[in-house]
């Protein structure tokens, strides 16, 4: 069985008396160590798919279909199974601007708390926290900072450190670079990709930035209003878009971006 198996996933959201079909018939298979990107705009359902993978859909959601992560039935499995899954098998990184950390506690305390929650001793947790910060190339004194003392890029690195704390097999990244400066964006993506190689992680990356995604390996799906309109290996999908939506997105990429995209794509 593949690491991630999503079969005919449908999600409806109830809001304001109406029901919105947020995700229509989504399918995805990802092997261990594989990489997949989901591209779409707000309202396309891409973030909802990630939440479904972690079993974190809100109370006003209704789902059908199957979602299996590392053999665990996320939609119908027991709470215990899901709790074991979260952070130990699969973890998530959100947008930097979403302030993922508790503002009144230091970053260190939160990473250590997460580690202790998953069974590490205090001393071990402290050591691991320092190792994690080395891994994301943050100076260890930043461990003692509060969230607001970190810049957007640093906060995101810290969030990645937190996500990798329990050595998961799968990393879900929901718009990890949105709202960051372009150079910082490129650095964060670079960090995520190199960590992926180092730790042999599977990665599902969600973004609205096509220029970013066009440089990635693995597979790609494009979502529009809940529907998956394109899916396949990145290079194939980008080279021969079938749907008007993707065509117009590619056309909107500025010349100087295209010039580099067609050249060296990492194998």
């Amino acid at each position: 069985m593949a690491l991630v198996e999503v079969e005919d996933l449908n999600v409806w959201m109830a809001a304001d008396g109406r029901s919105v079909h947020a995700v229509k018939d989504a399918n995805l298979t990802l092997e261990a160590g594989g990489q997949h990107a989901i591209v779409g705009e707000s309202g396309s359902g891409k973030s909802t798919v990630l939440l479904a993978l972690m079993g974190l859909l809100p109370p006003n959601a209704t789902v059908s279909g199957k979602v299996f992560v590392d053999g665990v039935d996320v939609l119908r499995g027991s709470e215990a199974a899901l709790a074991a899954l979260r952070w130990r098998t699969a973890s998530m990184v959100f947008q930097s601007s979403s302030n993922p950390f508790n503002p009144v506690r230091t970053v260190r305390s939160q990473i250590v708390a997460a580690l202790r929650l998953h069974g590490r001793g205090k001393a071990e947790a402290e050591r691991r926290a320092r190792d994690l910060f080395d891994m994301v190339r943050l100076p260890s004194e930043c461990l003692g900072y509060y969230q607001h003392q970190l810049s957007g890029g640093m906060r995101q690195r810290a969030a990645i450190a937190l996500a990798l704390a329990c050595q998961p097999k799968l990393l879900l990244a929901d718009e990890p670079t949105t709202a960051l400066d372009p150079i910082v964006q490129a650095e964060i993506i670079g960090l995520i990709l190199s960590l992926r190689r180092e730790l042999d992680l599977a990665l599902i990356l969600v973004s609205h930035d096509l220029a970013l995604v066009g440089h990635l390996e693995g597979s790609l799906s494009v979502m529009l209003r809940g529907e998956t309109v394109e899916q396949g290996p990145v290079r194939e999908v980008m080279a021969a878009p079938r749907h008007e939506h993707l065509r117009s997105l590619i056309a909107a990429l500025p010349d100087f971006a295209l010039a580099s995209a067609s050249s060296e794509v990492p194998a």
Partner: protein
Amino acid sequence: MSPVEPTALGGLDASNAPAWNPGRALGPKLVVAIVVLASFALVALVGRFLNLDPGAIDVAHIFQPPSMEHWLGTDDAGRDIFMQLIIGAWPSLVVGLSAAAVAVLIGGTVGILAGYSRGWLDLVLLRVMDYFIVVPALPFAMVITAVWGPGLGHMILVIAILLWSTTARVVRAQVKSGRERLYVIRARMLGASHLHVLLRHILPQALPLIGTTGSLAVALAILTQAALEFFGLAGTAVLSWGSMIRFAFQRDAMLNGAWWMVAPPGICICIVITACYWLAQCLETALNPRLRTTDLRVRSFRVLAVSRGER
């Protein structure tokens, strides 16, 4: 008209939800609260404007339990309790309402002033609020009564003085955050005067909050009044629920087993306070567009049963 686009959290988040969200608020709680309060208001008006009489002193029928003749029994002087309850409704409610109104007026004004100003005024008012919050209610009331003498009017003032600072703090917090909103900054950049900002942007946000704290203030005022009357700080001139309870204890109702002297006014107070509180809760739900946070430990979304081949 373009629909609200769904986001990962289901379409409405704090940023784009409507300011008035009656959906979950219009439930049975609100209906019950309004019905209860309206009924008591009606009873109070009846008691005030229809010259009711609890009956002359009838020594032969003291401490009578509830019966067909006297629905809630009689007191230590043979007077009908039920009548007294109706007559006592008006003072109990009016004092509470007036005191709350005064408290909210003072508190709202001070809160807005403190929240909007950035410098020393805010600090000074904050200290004043803090002082009044810690003033102990009963000793303060005793002192005031000793100095001014008892009376309904004085009681309204005393209760208002005790309650205004809670409203003020809440309003101050709201105004403080409201002042930093981008649309306020934009208006100031356009050259809007402070008055314009207050009237157009700050006040509309603060008023609903004042309504909510106002409902709570009414509840607290009624309770405080009952307490003050129970301790005899309101004087004996006026018959109200609180003084009924006081007379009951003073005149050994419990020793005579006359629970019907103590329970009815106490229960009425409880019911009215609860209704006020529910009203405040419903108002708050309606005004607060934030979604509930999901409890991550329990799966809260619904899963449809899937049978293969069915779509």
